[in-house]
């Protein structure tokens, strides 16, 4: 039987100071053009926490707005705050930066992160009120250190500063004197990814209602690499996240594939459960500090606020078929293969049309497609266009080309089978995965019966190949528990053996 999507969780971490100090657009600018107007004016373009919470795409990400409700708003979204918006959502939450810094320190197992003791004292009470912060996490938060030490490590020891509201409040030091893979910069990226993934996984346990001890396996699918000079990228984020999230019976591994990694991980998880290897597999990813403010120059140039100010995280629970939750149909798997080619038409054909044709389905048989779900508020001012729209257009164009859709039906196809994007441009985060939670709900509510999740990845950025990549799968309404057909039950086998033995015994007499 197919496995099911039992739950999905989503978290955002407001990280305005990390935009300034850790986003690669900004860190690069500091090297090549340190006195630039951009760097001078950028702080004035950062949003406050309340603005981030009230931002409609963020409310959609954590489940408080549906994709349909977001689509009914006129773009741009940044000047249309959601009234009475809350940081808690149906699928997760938006965590403020100060609370995140404490979680970040708690996730550090090697005494690398040190926070100013006054900052800890001021922030800890808020985190203690957090319903998901258990004794294990809270017990790991240290009292903090003197500000003189914080300043000394940042100035003299190559530590990366940790900031809150423009003020230095801590540091993360290097984990090795000479190994670049354990530098303060790399440890910052990896720990931020780990901590935001821990938050997503804690939410997954909550929203799914599963006992944490029942999760057997965790697949982590971010875009960071953890390891040392002898095994850069050795891993294992997954187990470190499971440890912090309190999953005593889980092991796991990391799956990589740039933005396509979540889809690869979900197909792998579904296969592991369907095969009976594991009963409950969690797929999880944290956020990317490097991508914060990636398109900030264009946003500032256009007088906008910098919208790439959150780390994204998500988690999904793939479990044995319960007869209720949507199934992951492993008979419909789209793959961008080595021989597929790079043109947008070839890519979408391999990921959408080919797997559907294989099972006799048409493009319009899928109610909703989720490909690249980047928020157009972020990408349009930067000249990258409306990415989800471009994907749906290409899928619709293939439906026209194959003769199942009249040319004049293309716009309606995009409206009916597509969605407006709401995900932050955090690489792996927007790629299909943001729709899992909403898709599950819409299928359970009977609004749709089938959704296709499409992950696409830019492998060429690693400079090992010019290949693109992608993988897709279909989430569909549960068809109910079915007994396996074509095989005999244990009782039948026992009966057959007993009969054979009786016949054999009879033949001897």
């Amino acid at each position, binding site marked *: 039987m197919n496995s099911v999507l039992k739950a999905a969780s989503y978290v955002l971490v407001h990280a305005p100071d990390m935009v300034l100090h850790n986003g690669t657009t900004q860190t690069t600018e500091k090297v090549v053009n340190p006195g630039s107007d951009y760097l001078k004016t950028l702080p004035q373009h950062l949003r406050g926490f309340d603005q981030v919470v009230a931002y409609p795409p963020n409310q959609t990400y954590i489940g408080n707005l549906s994709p349909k409700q977001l689509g009914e708003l006129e773009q741009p979204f940044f000047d249309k705050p959601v009234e009475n918006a809350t940081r808690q959502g149906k699928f997760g939450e938006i965590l403020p930066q100060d609370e995140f810094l404490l979680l970040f320190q708690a996730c550090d197992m090697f005494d690398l992160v040190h926070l100013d003791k006054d900052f800890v004292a001021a922030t800890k009470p808020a985190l203690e009120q957090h319903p998901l912060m258990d004794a294990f996490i809270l017990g790991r938060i240290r009292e903090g250190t003197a500000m003189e030490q914080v300043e000394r490590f940042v100035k003299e020891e190559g530590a990366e500063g940790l900031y809150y509201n423009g003020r230095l409040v801590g540091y993360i030091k290097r984990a090795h004197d000479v190994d670049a893979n354990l530098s303060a910069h790399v440890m910052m990226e990896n720990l931020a990814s780990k901590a935001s993934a821990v938050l997503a996984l804690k939410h997954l346990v909550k929203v799914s209602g599963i006992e944490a001890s029942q999760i057997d396996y965790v697949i982590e699918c971010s875009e960071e690499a953890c390891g040392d000079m002898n095994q850069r990228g050795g891993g294992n984020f997954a187990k470190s996240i499971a440890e912090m999230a309190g999953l005593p019976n889980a092991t796991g591994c990391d799956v990589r594939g740039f933005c396509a990694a979540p889809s690869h991980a979900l197909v792998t998880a579904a296969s592991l459960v369907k095969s009976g290897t594991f009963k409950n597999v969690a797929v999880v990813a944290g956020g990317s500090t490097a991508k914060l403010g*990636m398109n900030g120059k264009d946003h500032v140039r256009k007088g906008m606020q910098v919208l790439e100010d959150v780390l994204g995280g998500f988690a999904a629970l793939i479990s044995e078929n319960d007869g209720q939750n949507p199934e992951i149909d492993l008979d419909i798997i789209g793959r961008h293969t080595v021989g597929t080619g790079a043109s947008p038409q070839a890519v979408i054909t391999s990921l959408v049309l080919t797997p559907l044709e294989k099972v006799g389905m048409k493009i319009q048989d899928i109610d909703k497609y989720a490909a690249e779900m980047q928020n157009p508020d972020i990408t349009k001012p930067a000249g990258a266009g409306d990415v989800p729209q471009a994907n749906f257009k290409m899928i619709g164009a293939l439906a026209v080309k194959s003769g199942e859709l009249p040319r004049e039906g293309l716009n309606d196809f995009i409206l009916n089978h597509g969605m407006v994007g709401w995900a932050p441009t955090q690489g792996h985060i*927007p790629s299909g995965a943001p729709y899992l939670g909403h898709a599950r709900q819409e299928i359970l509510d009977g609004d749709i019966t089938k959704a296709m999740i499409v992950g696409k990845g*830019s492998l060429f*950025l690693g400079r090992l190949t010019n290949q693109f990549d992608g993988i897709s799968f279909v989430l569909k309404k549960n068809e109910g528990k079915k007994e396996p057909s074509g095989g005999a039950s244990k009782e039948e086998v026992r009966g057959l053996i007993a009969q054979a033995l009786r016949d054999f015994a009879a033949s001897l007499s």
Partner: protein
Amino acid sequence: MSLLNNKKVIIIGDRDGIPGPAIEECFKNTQAEILFSSTECFV
């Protein structure tokens, strides 16, 4: 395609638009010399 004779070309493709290899294909039957081609990701 005389316009492209003796021209040197640098190609920056967009993964969500037209990728580098697809643009390269368009230059194959011309006299242009491709110095560099890559695809970049802006999201």
